[in-house]
């Protein structure tokens, strides 16, 4: 045993604890019975690789069990450094949890909030909107539909938060402005906006074009600071006139269903021309105007200008002191007068239109009366015969023409009367042809009017498909062969 002690001492660094341990071990083993000692001495079947002796003992050093050769002291094998049952009572902790630090706020969230602040500063909104948009951004960002989207979409989300807060707190801006600021596709902005509104359960008010007009007109750099005197105009005058133009356009079916920005652009262009209709301005096209004002031209704006000019011409022709006919070329000079007296002119135009229709009807009436019996008053003529409907129209017109004229009526009352009567009729196919103002999709219908198709009565589905018909669906074997050959030919010719 002393032998053993000495051998260990040779190959291990001397330490007090080791020494003590060994001393204790040796004492203990001395106290142990002979049989135990023999067990300690020999490990069955093992031989030391160094000296070849079979004197291998099991030893615990620093809680590590080892097989040691007594003769030369070399370690034959060793066990685990830490025994498995030494950790009774402790729990398994994963690596990530053991190395975790305190949770830091998400960097992208912080950047997003800074972007929200930046957008608010650019738009120069008040602090209430800025705070509210940051709150909304925080909420929306953490939601599951936005936490994992791309960074570009998160930026769009920032813009949408600002947009919704502006709408809620009465500072209307358009989606077009936001998509310009973010340099993003307006459709993507729209999608993100709608999803965000759904998630956050907000009900923003719908903005009117007239409300946005002021903010929009500020974009046009057309004041005397930016351009020469013959082109300059104050933003206030421009806005005022453009708003009246847009209201007129709204009454005549130009605004409904159209994108607001081209309408606003057309209104501002026409109001700019009409505020000082000198030859410089009248010669200036929309494209040149956009270049002067440093805005991007929208293609639909030219169409809106044409439509607005048409409406203005219809009203312009009613002005009593204008002798010549008003055409789209010379209507700009009359715009100021038209807008000032627009309600009166509208009433006059409607009356003229009705009288024209009445004359037309009466002419066709005289032709058709010989063929058909005279119809009864207003209600239910069920057939869609155009003659019948126009005759009815004549009756109604005659009735209305007898009523007192102008007064202080709003055109609304005239039209309400008309719809009351009209509701009891069968709906006529194209009301666009009969009224003064109608949306273009009704005046020039591109699609054929849909009618109920008669159901197929002769097909049950379970019947045998006749030979002639089956030929149109299935190729004969010969045709199939030819098809394969032709395909191969094409393939080869493409390859070569």
């Amino acid at each position, binding site marked *: 045993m002393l032998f053993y002690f000495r051998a260990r001492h040779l190959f291990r660094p001397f330490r007090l604890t080791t020494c003590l341990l060994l001393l204790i071990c040796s004492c203990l083993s001395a106290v142990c019975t002979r049989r135990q000692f023999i067990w300690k001495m020999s490990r069955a079947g093992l031989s030391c690789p160094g000296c070849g002796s079979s004197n291998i003992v099991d030893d615990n050093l620093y809680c590590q069990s080892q097989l040691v050769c007594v003769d030369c002291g070399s370690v034959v094998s060793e066990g685990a450094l830490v025994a498995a049952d030494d950790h009774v009572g402790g729990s398994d902790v994963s690596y990530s949890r053991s190395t975790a630090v305190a949770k830091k706020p998400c960097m992208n969230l912080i950047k997003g909030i800074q972007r929200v602040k930046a957008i608010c500063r650019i738009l120069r909104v008040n602090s209430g909107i800025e705070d509210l948009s940051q709150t909304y951004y925080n909420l929306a960002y953490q939601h599951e539909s936005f936490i994992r989207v791309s960074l570009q979409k998160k930026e769009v989300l920032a813009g949408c938060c600002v947009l919704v807060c502006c709408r809620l707190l009465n500072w209307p801006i358009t989606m077009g402005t936001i998509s310009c600021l973010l340099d993003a596709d307006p459709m993507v902005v729209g999608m993100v906006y*709608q999803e965000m509104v759904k998630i956050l359960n907000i009900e923003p008010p719908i903005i009117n074009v007239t409300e946005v007009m002021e903010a929009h007109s500020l974009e046009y750099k057309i004041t005397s600071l930016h351009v020469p005197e013959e082109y300059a105009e104050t933003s206030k005058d421009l806005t005022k006139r453009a708003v009246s133009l847009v209201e007129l356009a709204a009454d005549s*079916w130009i605004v409904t269903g*159209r994108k607001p920005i081209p309408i606003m652009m057309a209104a501002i262009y026409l109001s700019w021309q009409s505020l000082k209709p000198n030859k410089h301005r009248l010669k200036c096209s929309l494209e040149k105007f956009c270049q002067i004002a440093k805005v991007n031209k929208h293609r639909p704006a030219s169409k809106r200008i044409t439509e607005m000019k048409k409406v203005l011409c219809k009203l312009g022709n009613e002005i009593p002191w204008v002798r010549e006919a008003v055409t789209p070329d010379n209507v700009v000079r009359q715009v100021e007068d038209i807008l000032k007296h627009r309600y009166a002119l509208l009433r006059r135009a409607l009356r003229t239109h009705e009288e024209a229709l009445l004359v037309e009807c009466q002419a066709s009436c005289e032709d058709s009366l010989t063929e058909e019996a005279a119809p009864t008053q207003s209600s239910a003529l069920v057939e869609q015969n155009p003659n019948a409907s126009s005759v009815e129209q004549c009756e109604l017109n005659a009735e209305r023409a007898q009523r007192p004229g102008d007064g202080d009526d709003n055109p*609304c009352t005239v039209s309400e009367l008309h*719809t009351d009567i009209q509701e009891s009729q069968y709906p006529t196919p194209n009301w666009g042809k009969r009224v003064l103002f109608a*949306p273009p999709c009704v005046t020039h219908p591109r699609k054929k009017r849909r009618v109920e198709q008669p159901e197929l009565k002769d097909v049950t*589905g379970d019947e045998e498909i006749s030979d002639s018909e089956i030929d149109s669906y299935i190729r004969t074997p010969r045709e199939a062969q030819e098809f394969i050959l032709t395909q191969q030919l094409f393939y080869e010719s493409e390859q070569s």
Partner: protein
Amino acid sequence: MDSSNDEALDIIITNVVATFRTRCHLNLRTIALEGTNVIYKPEVGKVLMKLRKPKITASIWSSGKIICTGATSEDDAKLGARRLARLLQKLGFKVRFSAFKVVNVLAVCSMPFAIHLIDFTKNNRPIASYEPELHPAATYRIKHIKATIQVFSTGSITVTGPNVQNVATAVEQVYPLLFECQKPRYK
């Protein structure tokens, strides 16, 4: 149909989409080879087959699932589907017509009055939503019958729903709401 007016509204069904299964694997190359009026799309993995009577386009997948579109009524869709199954039988596949289901119905309807969309949306928030910058129509979604109605300012509406009955119910439900927001046409 409507209790509020004497006239009847014409609801015209423009498209019915239905699916069914053939319970057997279909070899798309055989169909493409031996069938006329077919378009084979190997990149997607389907064959498009057009029937003349009734006028239907079918997308056929090799798993045996078939989608039929273009029918103008639910019965038409079923007839067309059965015809198609018959045709595939003739081509040599062991087809068994099963699991027929109408998935979507699209209908249009025209109101005899124009509608003021902004008022309509204000009265029916949050079920209705209107963004003029994105789409010219206001969208009205009825959750419990799973129907979506697109309302245009000219008075036309389009309705989509899972079957014809739901579509009719949706129109009946939305008519009074549209009636109170009507705009005089005569301006």
